[in-house]
């Protein structure tokens, strides 16, 4: 994905499997909550300036033997509403399954109706996601949540057969998080227009072979004769 190259900011490793709920009290979120929306942009600038000086550390996922180290591209910077506790700290948690409107009018096209918000989002602390065992998971580690159900994909992703590695084939291995490509609320990749078709060489005519030839192994012989 082309947007990756400039967007990756170096930041200290929050990618280990250990989960740290104390992070909710990080100075930037306190600052943002107190100063409110007007200073939101300024707060982001300060946060970014701090991040650049740190290192994006590759860490080893311990779930599989022989797994290679990988740094995961942070995701929280791209989240519009994060930190969620800015609002949710003062709101009462409502576990009732219902259609959300207002802020989060999400069409949940994921899991064929078998899952709901709190399947992935932590009910107690909205700054975190949640595993199937209700352990809080940082938003930068969304792959731990996705891998809970999509274990095969998660393994392929970690070993390199699924998903995208950033920029290099050699050196520090940086991977895009699942949620960089898949909208977690509607994970299927949407159809879009292709880039321009190759031009037909001067003097040649375009013949679409697929339109007038149909031969599949299961086509009957009569159909062949008709053509």
């Amino acid at each position, binding site marked *: 994905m082309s947007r990756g190259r400039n967007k990756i900011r170096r930041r200290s490793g929050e990618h280990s499997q250990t989960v740290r709920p104390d992070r909710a009290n990080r100075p930037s979120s306190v600052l943002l909550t107190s100063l409110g929306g007007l200073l939101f942009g300024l707060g982001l600038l300060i946060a970014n300036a701090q991040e650049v000086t740190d290192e994006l550390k590759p860490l080893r996922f311990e779930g599989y033997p022989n797994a290679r180290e990988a740094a995961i591209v942070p995701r929280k910077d791209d989240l519009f509403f994060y930190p969620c506790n800015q609002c949710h700290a003062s709101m009462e948690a409502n576990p009732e399954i219902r259609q959300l409107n207002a802020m989060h009018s999400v069409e949940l096209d994921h899991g064929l109706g078998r899952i709901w918000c709190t399947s992935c989002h932590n009910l107690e602390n909205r700054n975190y996601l949640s595993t199937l065992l209700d352990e809080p998971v940082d938003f930068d580690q969304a792959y731990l949540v996705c891998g809970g159900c999509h274990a095969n994909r998660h393994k392929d992703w970690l070993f390199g057969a699924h998903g995208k590695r950033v920029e290099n084939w050699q050196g520090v291995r940086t991977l895009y998080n699942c949620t960089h490509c898949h909208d977690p609320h509607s994970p299927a990749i949407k*159809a879009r227009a292709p880039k321009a078709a190759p031009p037909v060489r001067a003097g040649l005519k375009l013949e679409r*072979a*697929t339109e007038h030839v149909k031969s599949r192994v299961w086509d009957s012989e009569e159909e062949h004769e008709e053509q």
Partner: protein
Amino acid sequence: MSNDGSSGEGGSNFDKARRNFLRGVGVGAAAAVATPAWGGETFQDAFADFFQKDYRRMSAEEIEAALERIERRAKRRYDVEIECENTPPQQGVVFGYAINISRCKGYRDCVHACVKENNLGRDSQIQYIRVLQMDQGDFNLEHSDHYYDPETVPVEGKHYLPVQCMQCDDPPCVKACPVEATWMEPDGIVVVDYDWCIGCRYCMAACPYWARHFNWTDPEIPAEEINTDTHYLGNRPRPRGVVEKCHFCIQRTRKGRQPACMEACPTGARIFGNLLDPDSEIRYVLANKQVFRLKEDLGTEPKFWYFSD
């Protein structure tokens, strides 16, 4: 090209004959005559170009001089300062490529990233990558269509198969070349020395994958779109009348970067890496996925695999 037809019509037969004669003389023995005959090059450059050896037989100094000539030529032709290198292959690296065809949606982002990265002529219509569209359940390449242009892709009932140079380990194109202008580098990339190529196109006939392309015209590239990071065996500006092909973005991959097509792929269908490194992504794919190669029966041993999951 410089010959304008309008003045020729008014001239007498003698004038025509004379002009044709002079043109013949000009091509054969223009050696020490006026500068325009060299297309703006200095006599020294043109002389050195003429006596330049095959890349593999040049000494380090000769290569250095050739690289500087290439940079000067690009400056004259496109008025752009390019940097031409000859980064050597890395020890213990053989490149391999794999494409997950169940991820490929036919967006053609790879095709256009390749054109831009590799300074392909915009007018000459050369594209290294062809994304074939086929009916689902059909794998007959003869029925494929790479000119597809629907509103949105993927089209229901179709599947997509990107085809480019397979970097064969036993490349028939190399065997066909009568002047050894193309060969396989130690890191497995089949390259062309554009200055040694005589343009006979035997290699194109020998390639079963349609991966080689001939420059019928001087490649025309808008100056602001030229990629200035070039390699002697890769994406340096090519002359007219030579064959070129995909070189796994040799200018990038030898420095550890991904090929442009892989970096551009929005779905992550493309996987590239070192076949000799047992921990690499490509080795994981080869060990854990059902892979196949195109036209494997021809025995060309492509280092390019396809799989679906």
